[in-house]
């Protein structure tokens, strides 16, 4: 920390604690998701507050689903409860377009060019940046080297789904508590549908055609979902239809999963010996493909944005600049360890030797994120932006409804055909209600 900052902090401290508290600090209220990176940021906030004595930061931590509801309600009703919102890649373009978010412009030193292009594009509307990425992720396949080896198999850098199924069959050993493959099944557009969308993409399908007609009853959807249900029936753990990231992470760390396709962020957990019993036996591959490599792995980022309803937009921007800067990444690396730095946002992170040394997954993750393209992720042309989602307001409810159907199909409560038929019907219903056609 620089000398004058310390002095400034000291002076600020004295001023604040003196009887005349006339110079009340600006209080920034930040709504955020309760994931690891954000929680670490809360612990490091005092660095920001020391450097900016005129600002205090209040955190409101919420679970992802609740956060999304709160943010939307607040911004749509102009509630103005928050100065900074943590929002996902899905919301940014929609909200930015509606004029609900302030455009972000940073100093030269922030180095906007350093942000990964796929991510930066996903957060911009008409070239204007509406949110700064805090961490980004793609999906990749994690597998147990010991099990694959024992089965006499190998795992290419980018396997096909058929190969994955073969491997799963070989290593599936439920009597010893090992399941061939663990995949998300819990309903939700950000849960099972994130995975399934990428599967459908690589099977050659898409959410909507160029006329915005839902495509859920097309062959690629049918193939992809049938393949998924079949795979999980045979080689998945029980209770898959309730599993999402956390549930599977727990299973994987207990050594119960042979393979797991999920967010790249998982890599840092499964390779952490303090959390994982199999930390030294994991390896990473790119997300499996089928007919096309397009859209086989998803792209997601949690970002910080400033709602137009705030009265402290300058201070808010200052905080975001700090929280998504190279310096912050450096700070996390130094304070908490390089294995814990937020990844997936800046090219410079992946060039940092300290990070590369600490993160065994660095290469695979960088490759996955770099290969994703939200504007071109389907075999045939599609009208929407987003790999595992379509960046339109209606997608959320469609995604949830379809997710429910898929989870019912996985649970065996309905057939794949029927689930897709129901899905198509409810998607069609939503699109019609919104007047797309």
């Amino acid at each position: 920390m620089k000398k004058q900052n310390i002095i400034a902090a000291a002076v600020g401290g004295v001023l604040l604690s003196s009887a005349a508290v006339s110079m009340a600090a600006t209080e920034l209220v930040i709504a955020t998701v309760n994931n690891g990176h954000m929680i670490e940021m809360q612990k490091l906030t005092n660095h920001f507050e020391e450097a900016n004595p005129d600002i205090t930061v209040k955190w409101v931590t919420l679970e992802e689903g609740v956060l999304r509801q709160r943010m939307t309600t607040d911004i749509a009703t102009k509630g103005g409860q928050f100065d900074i919102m943590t929002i996902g890649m899905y919301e940014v373009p929609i909200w930015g377009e509606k004029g609900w978010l302030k455009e972000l412009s940073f100093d030269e030193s922030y180095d906007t060019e350093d942000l990964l292009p796929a991510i930066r594009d996903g957060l911009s509307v008409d070239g204007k940046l509406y949110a700064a990425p805090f961490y980004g992720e793609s999906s990749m396949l994690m597998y147990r080297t010991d099990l694959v080896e024992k089965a006499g198999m190998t795992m290419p850098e980018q396997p096909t789904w058929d190969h994955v199924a073969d491997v799963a069959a070989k290593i599936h050993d439920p009597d010893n508590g090992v399941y061939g493959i663990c995949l998300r099944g819990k309903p939700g557009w950000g849960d099972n549908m994130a995975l399934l969308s990428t599967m459908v993409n690589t099977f050659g399908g898409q959410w909507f055609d160029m006329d915005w007609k839902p495509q859920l009853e097309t062959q690629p959807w049918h193939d992809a979902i049938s393949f998924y249900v079949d795979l999980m029936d045979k080689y998945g753990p029980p209770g898959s239809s309730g599993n999402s990231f956390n549930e599977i992470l727990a299973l994987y760390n207990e050594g119960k999963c042979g393979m797991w396709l999920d967010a790249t962020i998982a890599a840092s957990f499964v390779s952490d010996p303090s959390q994982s019993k199999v930390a030294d036996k994991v390896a990473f591959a790119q997300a499996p493909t089928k007919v096309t490599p397009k859209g086989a792995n998803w792209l997601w980022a949690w970002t910080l944005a400033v709602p137009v309803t705030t009265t402290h937009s300058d201070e808010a921007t200052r905080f975001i600049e700090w929280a998504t800067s190279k310096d912050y990444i450096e700070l996390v690396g130094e304070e908490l360890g390089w294995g814990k730095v937020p990844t997936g946002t800046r090219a410079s992170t992946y060039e940092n030797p300290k990070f590369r040394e600490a993160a065994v997954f660095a290469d695979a993750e960088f490759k996955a994120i770099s290969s994703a393209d939200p504007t071109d992720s389907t075999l045939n042309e599609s009208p929407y932006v987003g790999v595992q989602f379509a960046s339109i307001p209606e997608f959320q409810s469609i995604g949830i409804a379809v997710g429910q159907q898929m989870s019912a199909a996985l649970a065996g409560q309905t057939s794949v055909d029927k689930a897709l038929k129901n899905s198509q019907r409810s998607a069609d219903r939503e699109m019609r209600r919104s007047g797309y056609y």
Partner: protein
Amino acid sequence: MSFAQKSKSATVIRSSVAWLIALVMFFPILFLTVTAFKTELQAIAVPSVWFFEPTLENFTEVQERSDYLHYAWNSVLTSVMSTLLGLLIAIPAAFSFAFTPTRRTKDILMWMLSTKMMPAVGALVPIYVLSQKTGLLDTRFALIIIFTMMNLPIMVWMLYSAFKDIPHEIFEAARMDGAGLWEEFRHVLLPLGMGGIASTGLLCLVLAWNEAFWVLNLTSSQAGTLASLVASYSSPEGLFWAKLSAVSVLAIAPIVVFGWFSQKQLVQGLTFGAVK
């Protein structure tokens, strides 16, 4: 078989079964508490670990991340204040219902209760917009009002049932003795209705403490209660069972312990007039 013999062997069986049921019912809470002292890996271990070196790590983590006392204080403040405010409104109403019933008394009571049957989420947007327009978003005041209104029907009904059991004639005697409305309240209704008032208050305290929906939707940084603290620990990325247990224990412990100590009072008036 003689009655004495029968009762002796029966008592042994009966008490064992009762103990078994009680332990089964309590087991989840016990398990939650034990998990709070485990490490994350121990928390998901199969079979469950019962003998381990307890760690306070989860609790320190919770306190480090969020100011527990802030949330706890909000919980205490909102639940106590809403209960007091509710009693203030409900006692006169129940008094009136109990001692000067009209043909419409039952209807009004039923109407009051029916206001509770509407799903809260249906009124979310109206309430949200109203709170926002009145500047009450994220204030403890808004929560107090909402908790009060939420519990008011139950309060009126409980108090009405309790007051109805007080003999009319005692009030008449007091009236003959020169008691005005206030003296009737102060010297007859309050002392004689105390059992009912206490249990009504206790129940509403518990209900307000445990309310989550409005807390989650109307508060952000200032007015959040323990219910919102718990919500901030549910399903993040990564293993969280032990931390979730710790925060859950912290959130429910005050009210559960409070419930244990006050259960006698609670039982007294929790009858809703069900006991003749």
